Each structure stands twice: as structure tokens, then as C-alpha cells.
């Protein structure tokens, strides 16, 4: 399924860095999200758009991950040629990721 089915997201910007939160609708899905949505996968998803490293921070009690992507905004909000200079749309794009639920419980359901 797509990440969109189990999580929501918002993007923020500072200089040339974008941060994307990924937040579970249901706390019970957080383990799955944390396992599937790694910094490497996010880096791969945004290949070509993000030139720097991708870091992941975890807030398990909120069911949330925070991805910090350096070099994501074409030189920064204030001088970028991009239509979406703030990278506001990136948060919607991350929800397109496919996540695979392999637990027996979900397979049975």
C-alpha cells in the first residue's frame, strides 16, 4: 500500500534544507512506518531533487518521523528558480512511497 494510507505529512523549509514529517494516523502503524520509511529510501525517492544527505529523527511517542534533507531547495528559498521554491509539495510526494506490511496479523486481516 502507499504510505498515504497510514500516514500524513507536512514540509518545512530553512535555507536550502527541507524537513518532512511523516506521522502515523494510528500509533499501531508506527513500527511499520519506522521499518519501511528509512532515510535511504527517502533519499532514493527524491533522487535528483535532493543533493545533500537525508537524516531521520524519531519521535515514537508521537508516532512520528522527521526527515531533514540538505540541498533540497535549489540553493535556498530566497533565490531558487523553482516554481515551488519552498519545497512545500515534497511532503505530499513522500506519501507516494510504497510500504509493505509483512506481519502475519495484517496478512490475515
Amino acid at each position, binding site marked *: 500500500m502507499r504510505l498515504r494510507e497510514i500516514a500524513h505529512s507536512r514540509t518545512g523549509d530553512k535555507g536550502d534544507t527541507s524537513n518532512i514529517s511523516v506521522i502515523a494516523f494510528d500509533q499501531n502503524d508506527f513500527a511499520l512506518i519506522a521499518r519501511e520509511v528509512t532515510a535511504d529510501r527517502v533519499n532514493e525517492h527524491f533522487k535528483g*531533487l535532493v543533493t545533500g544527505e537525508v537524516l531521520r529523527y524519531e519521535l515514537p511517542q508521537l508516532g512520528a518521523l522527521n526527515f531533514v534533507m540538505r540541498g533540497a531547495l535549489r540553493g535556498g528559498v530566497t533565490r531558487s528558480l523553482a516554481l515551488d521554491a519552498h519545497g512545500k509539495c515534497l511532503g505530499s*510526494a513522500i506519501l507516494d512511497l510504497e510500504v509493505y506490511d509483512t506481519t502475519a496479523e495484517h496478512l490475515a486481516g
Partner: protein
Amino acid sequence: MKTVRIGTGAGFSGDRIEPAVDLAEKGDLDFLVFECLAERTIALAQQALLRDPNAGYDPMLVARMRAVLPACHARGVRIVTNMGAANPFAAADAVRAVLRELGLHGMRVAAVSGDDVLAEVKSGNYRIDETGQPVSALGSKLISANAYLGAGPIALALDRGAHIVITGRAADPALFLGPLVHAFGWAMDDWGRLGRGTVVGHLLECAGQITGGYFADPGYKDIPDLARLGFPIGEVDEDGNVTVTKLPGTGGAVTPATVKEQLLYEIHDPRRYIQPDVIADFSGVRIEETGPDKVRVTGGDGCAKTGLLKVSVGYIDSYIGEGQISYAGPGAMERGRLAIEIVAERLKITGVPCAETRGELIGVDSILGARLSGNCSAPREVRVRFVGRTDRREDAARVGNEVESLYLNGPAGGGGAAKSTREIVGIVSTLVPENRVSPGIHIQET
């Protein structure tokens, strides 16, 4: 336990006006905060100030104040805002003029100065974080340098009886932390409370972004009545924990989900949210729904501040020229791509010196690029966007002209051409020791 009620009246310069009036009239507020200063706004305001000594503050200041001051005066709601931008003194004068016009007496208006550190940054030739170069490398392109002031001067202005506090550049959460420090008498080394107060400020500073604005996704995240979105109220206790809510009958929603999205908005390491007054720690924050449109946020923390203030340095970067034109019907995408090729070649033939260019099809590949977005087979409408960066305005204009001239010289059926040029004020940053920055407070009564 004493509770302070803070509302947000605006989360950006162009925000809606009526939600603030609602809050002033019905919010039973102690403070109403307007956060209106984006990263580069102050550099643009500085340019306006150079042209006119009475300019340089937020263009909507007077309209906002005219709308909310009668209720704030009647109900004792005190106002904090960064709408002073590059000229808090002129902004305070303008607010006093509105008070006189409305016949409201006995209100003390404070201007907070000292964020303008251009002289310090020049004389110390500070190093730019992004480039590693000294500020002097910007030469005559340097426009402005403004330090993010903390909550201290705002709290002090309130301590001295100000009803309206107008700052230039201040850290956005400090606009909320200042009233809390004033109201609860928090010590400026009480890192835990300052950290929790920073969480409060961070949650509230974007106004409707925590009450259901910037959240709706039909079928997945539905939010009622966004046309009547209510702005947030924070009910803060003396330990700095907060219940976020909004006025009954307004649109929007306050839920754990809306609060979580805003908590992480523009955050990097949640353990180290660096502010002028404290390093706030969001990692232990707990979020709990306590009623309809009521969410309790606890567990924030903080540790000692860095002693350095972030400074936004504004400079004239470049000019951007842009043109757009639409194609529709069968073959729209192919004609759009041909148009991009033609413009790129025309700029070469005519020798327009562009440092970089982008040609793209809006609706096809302009936001996420061809790989993530370019999978739609044959759109029946595309809009070409071609944009280029130049050193001179007249060269930037030639980019848009080349798009416009596709009308008679380009692919079949181009329509709705538009062009623009704009000067780009860039923002970079540096750090200045706080003891090199001297905030001032100037209070006058009307």
C-alpha cells in the same frame, strides 16, 4: 493555577484579518500575537526604508490594527507583533495614529529596536555560514543584517506597561515566549520552562496551520469550513504546558494530528531547536486530546542557550526573468517541449547571459521533476514555464520576451502568455555573540 491565554492573530504577512478580530472580541485573551515577518521580508523592508524614512514596516499593519484595536482596548488584550520589520519606530507611530483616529486613549505603544546589526556585522566582518566567506565578499550588494532577538526585550516592554509591543526581527516563538516570561515571571535561566514556552510559541506562530489550515486532504484528512478557519488560542499554565484550542463556531479543527504536523514544521533535530533564549527539546513532547478542538501539549524541555544570535543577512543576489505560455488539445505536451527548446536556443542565439535556466511544463514535471511526476501519458493541457537568472534586470526581461514571442514564432496554438522580471534579494546567515547586540525599548502613550 494561573493560566495565560494567548491567541494568534496572523501567521504571515498576508494572512486573513477577521479571525484576529474574532479572537480579540470573543477569545477572553490576555495577549494577541501577530507573526508577519518572513525570512527575506526584512531585507525588502530595509530597501523600502532607504527610499523613504517613514516606510519599512509591514504594509498591512494599519489595516490589522484598525480592525482589532477597538476590541483589544475594550477587553484589555495586549498585542505583540513583529510587523515593525525594518522600522519599528515608524510602525509605532503609525499605530499611535490609528489609536488617535479611533479615539482610544491610555494605550502605551512600545517599539523594540536593536535587531539591526548591519554595522556590527560589517565592522566584525563576520563569516557567512552558507558560503564560508566573510561578509565583505558581498561588497555593495549587502543590504541588511538583522539579529533574531529573544523574548527578553518583549517581556521587559510588557513589564513596563506596554499594551502594544512592536518588534523588528525577533525569533518567531519569542513573540509568544515574551508574554509568558512577563506573565509568569519566569527566570531567563529556567531552561525547562523556557523550552516549554518555546514549544507553545512554535505551535502557535503559524496561526491557522495548527487549527486545520494547510492540513486538508479530501478523503484522507477532511477539515470543516476552511473558509471560516478559526485561529488558535493557547491556554498556558505556569509550567509552560499548553492546551491548544479555538473559538467555538469557527471553521477548522484542533486534533492531535493537526498539532503533530505543526510541532514538526520547520524542525530539524527535535532535541535541539536552537532559539535566542534556550535550546528547546521537543523529543519528550506528549500530545493528548482532552475535548472537542482541545489538545493538551506537555513534556517539552530545554537546556542552556548558545549565547549566539542568528543573523539574517540580506543581499542583492540576481534578477530572475520568467515567461509562461499554454498549449492544449492533442499534442499539447509535445508542443510545450518544443517551445522550451526554442526558448533555450533563442537565449543562446541572442546572447542573453543566464547563470542558470529552467524550462518545464506546469502540471507535468515542474514541481517534482520528470521521474516522480512525469508519468502522465498525454495531458490535454500544459503550461510552459521558462525561467532564467541574470545579473541585470534588462537581461532578465529578455527571458520573458522570448517566451512571449512564441506567439508568432513558436509552436501552433500557444495561448495566455505572461512574463515577469524580479530582483532577487537573497538571504544568508551568520552568528553574532549576543553581547554585541543591544536591544532598546521605546514606549510612548497615546
